[in-house]
């Protein structure tokens, strides 16, 4: 069975990125084919590699990176949602004439079409929202 997982809530003011992470791990362990995890809305901040919570707290960005490398899962970050919130890969940083980029390895910027494509290709689509 194929899942498309949509994360929409902020990693700091909602549990969305953490719940989605545990859900994705559980799905993979059950043999589910996770077509794609699509980060939209405030959740794009999960892909900021400059995020550093205190040592005794969980670094969600690293946990997602680990999951992507262990299971070869696509972590797609909506490019429009990311750029408006200051999350950029090298190409976007150049385009907007910034001296640095901050997209964490293992994440990839792409268009909203990737959300639509994953939704159509999946047997199940599940959204992890944030706070109202």
């Amino acid at each position, binding site marked *: *069975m194929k*899942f498309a997982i949509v994360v*929409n*809530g902020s990693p700091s003011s*909602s*549990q*969305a990125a953490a*719940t989605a992470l*545990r*859900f994705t*791990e*559980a*799905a993979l*362990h*059950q043999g*589910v084919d996770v077509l794609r995890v699509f980060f939209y809305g405030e959740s794009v901040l999960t892909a900021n590699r400059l995020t550093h919570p205190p040592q005794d707290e969980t670094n969600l960005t690293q946990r997602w990176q680990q999951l992507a490398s262990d299971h070869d899962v696509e972590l797609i970050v909506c490019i429009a949602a990311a750029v408006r919130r200051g999350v950029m890969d090298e190409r976007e940083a150049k385009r907007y004439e910034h001296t640095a980029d901050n997209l964490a390895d293992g994440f990839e910027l792409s268009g909203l079409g990737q959300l639509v494509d994953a939704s159509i290709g999946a047997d*199940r*689509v*599940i*959204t*992890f*929202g*944030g*706070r*109202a």
Partner: protein
Amino acid sequence: MVLHTVNSSPTQSRCLEDCLQLIRPPAVLLLIEDGVYGATTAHQALLDQLPDEISCTVLQPDVDARGLRPLLSERFDLVDDNGFVELTMKCDRVQSWY
């Protein structure tokens, strides 16, 4: 069958009430994150009108994180993360209320 997830506390948001107005069998209700407060006996009256065939579930890691087991209503069954995945497979589609 539709899986309805609710992630916000019933005292902070209308998510649960909004969901309950539109949930119809065949369906499963799953409370997650701050939504798990809705599974405590304090909010039991909200579910009075809910048909028996709609199963009410609550996400165990969120319940235990908040120490809520002693306060849970009997109407709710605990599911862990694997159970959440199984519900997603069992239901045909998911509506997330947030």
